[in-house]
């Protein structure tokens, strides 16, 4: 999952605008309580996602992740819904079923739980679509520059840049270590095999990352890095950005008043 170079309106927005919009969405995800409100929010986000012209592979990944999120939240909430009142629609273990019944206190699927799960999964899915849209449409260093411009310290920004830059290398390395383990006869079977793999994966991965980190630190020092920098990339907050901010603020307020339970 990374930046996709396209020329859509959403790609052209200033990263600060996108950060502001994400913050508004984050608030809405928490504040909105009714299924209708969350559904409206989710639809808007999904529309934005498709508006940014995602590659087919990204759409598939998103559907897959959302599918898992929905199934798990709905099922788990259906079973373990806690609040009263609740209506059982399918009883699996009745309360009076000897010791199993006593121990579990009865096991059933509740209608309110299913609804609650659906609402929760809407929240999860909204967050997923949102983060995917942002990552897909913003050049990473612009996002960091945006964060710095709104007051995140330069050093934090640099740490994030470097992590993004080096994360793929670490993942590649982990893959090679796993192959090297297989080639030396370590076979993965069951939970214990998994632990064995981890036991022999983490030490070389961590030690090599530390070595790598030291090399990076030296290289940064000789490139005069001290935490203060003149950026040649500049951000431009255009009229489109103002319009986008105004419209999203308006939508946010609208959703809060109509579905947030404040009225």
């Amino acid at each position, binding site marked *: 999952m990374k930046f996709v170079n396209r020329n859509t309106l959403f790609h052209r927005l200033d990263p600060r605008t996108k950060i502001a919009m994400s913050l508004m969405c984050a608030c809405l995800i928490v504040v909105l309580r009714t299924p209708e409100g969350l559904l409206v929010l989710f639809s808007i986000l999904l529309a934005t996602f498709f508006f940014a012209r995602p590659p087919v592979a990204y759409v598939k990944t998103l559907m897959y992740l959302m599918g898992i999120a929905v199934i798990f939240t709905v099922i788990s909430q259906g079973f373990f819904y806690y609040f009263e009142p609740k209506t059982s629609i399918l009883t699996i273990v009745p309360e009076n079923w000897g010791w199993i019944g006593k121990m579990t206190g009865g096991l059933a699927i509740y209608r309110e739980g299913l609804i609650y799960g659906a609402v929760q999964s809407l929240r999860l899915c909204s967050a997923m679509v949102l983060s995917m849209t942002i990552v897909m449409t913003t*050049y*990473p*260093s612009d996002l960091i520059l945006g964060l710095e411009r709104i007051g995140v310290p330069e050093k934090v920004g640099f740490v994030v*840049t*470097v992590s*993004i*830059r080096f994360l*793929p*290398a670490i993942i590649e*390395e982990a893959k*090679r*270590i796993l*192959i*090297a*383990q*297989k*080639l*030396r*006869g*370590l*076979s993965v079977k069951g939970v214990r095999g998994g632990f064995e793999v981890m036991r*022999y*994966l983490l*030490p*070389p991965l961590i*030690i*090599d990352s530390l*070595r*790598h980190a030291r*090399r*990076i*630190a*030296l*290289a*940064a*020092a*000789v*490139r*005069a*890095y*001290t935490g*203060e*920098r*003149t*950026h*040649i*990339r500049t951000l431009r907050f255009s009229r489109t950005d103002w319009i986008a901010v105004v419209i999203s603020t308006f939508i946010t307020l609208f959703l809060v008043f109509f579905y947030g339970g404040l009225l």
Partner: protein
Amino acid sequence: MMIRIENFTFAYPDSDKPALENISLEAAKGELLLVRGKSGSGKSTLLYCLNGIVPHIFNGEYSGRVQVNGFSPGDISIREISKTVGTVFQNCDSQIFMMRVEDDVAFGCENLRMSKDEILRRRDEALKVMGLWEMRRKETFKLSGGQKQRLAISAIYAMGPKIFLLDEPTTDLDQDGRKDFFNILKQLKSEGKLIILAEHQYEGYMPLVDRIVTLDNGRVVPSVYASDGHPDSFQGYGSLADIIISCKDLCVGYEKGEPVLKNIDIEVRRGEVVALSGRNGSGKTTLLKSLAGILRPSAGCLTVLEKVNPRLETLTGNVGFLFQNPDEQLFTDCVEEEIAFGPRHLGKEVDIEKYLHISGLYDARSSHPQTLSRGQRQVLAVTSILAMEPEILLLDEPTTGLDETNWGRLFSLLHQCVKEGKTVVFTTHNRKAAGTASRIIHIDEGKIVSDEIRK
């Protein structure tokens, strides 16, 4: 004199032996000074003393004087020094910070807080001089090894230093990358820059070198040229034995795009020592990986040890594979355990003592593998694969970064296993290493260009 070192001695904090001892050295504008020496001889430390990493980052005890362009590196900050002294390290990957080529070239200048126009001017000039202009918008992780090296040098060049310290900058480069680097050195020299080059494989650069400094155990010793003989040669091995690897019309590719290897036909006989040579990105590592079953053929037929288009799991134990970076294959916390790891998981009874002896690691048998030197780690990684007593040994660039001692150890290990009737296939872009093989297969753009059996 731009650099003047007088009676300089330096010891790292946890070490009882000085890393540099009584060094005296002078160098002037426009000179190219070659620093030679085994790993651990003090080459890198010498460079660290000039760019301020010693004493600012690695502090220790020191005596004597270091003067660089009229100042002493201990007295001013590394940032200040970096305006005069530029450093390029061996591993180009850890020197690239930005996602886009042009952003990375500007990074150093941004840190020096130059004006925006100045940064842009310097950035564009560096990109043009170093021949990166065409790929300035490219993402840095998509560059080849040689291009990354050029980017690392450009990024330093843009900062405008008078002195360039190059710490084994071409270890990972192929022949073409080295030719490129030769031209970069020429360019820098013509601009009157002082260059200090620490390098194992320096033969190609000799025409540009003004002086040689040889370090041994932290001291300067009289320079002697290394001989060019091939005492490690395997010529004439394995020409009549049975075929154990065969590729027919083999194509291998990654998920998308054209296959990396196209219609490869090779037969390898038991006991052969085959060198796969070629540029970075020519497909030699891809071929090696498919022989181990790490990559599967997309078309054609590959037979290894009578298994057709084998999977990794079916070859485990019979085929040993060495990755380029030894650290990715050392998992355990002691040398002895590391060698025993493979045999134990395969349920083979193996004489570990024997392998400790032939690898020269007997005295280090209870050390943690990660505390060994890079060369020793490489030898250990090879040994722990040999200990599984595989029929076929596949090695990806086994000589990268080895000094003469560990080079000798590696080849005596390989001799040992060829004598036992094993087959070795290795990739290399080092001519000396390729010259030892009984057969050299040259690959370019995924195709076999030449296949020479040497007698």
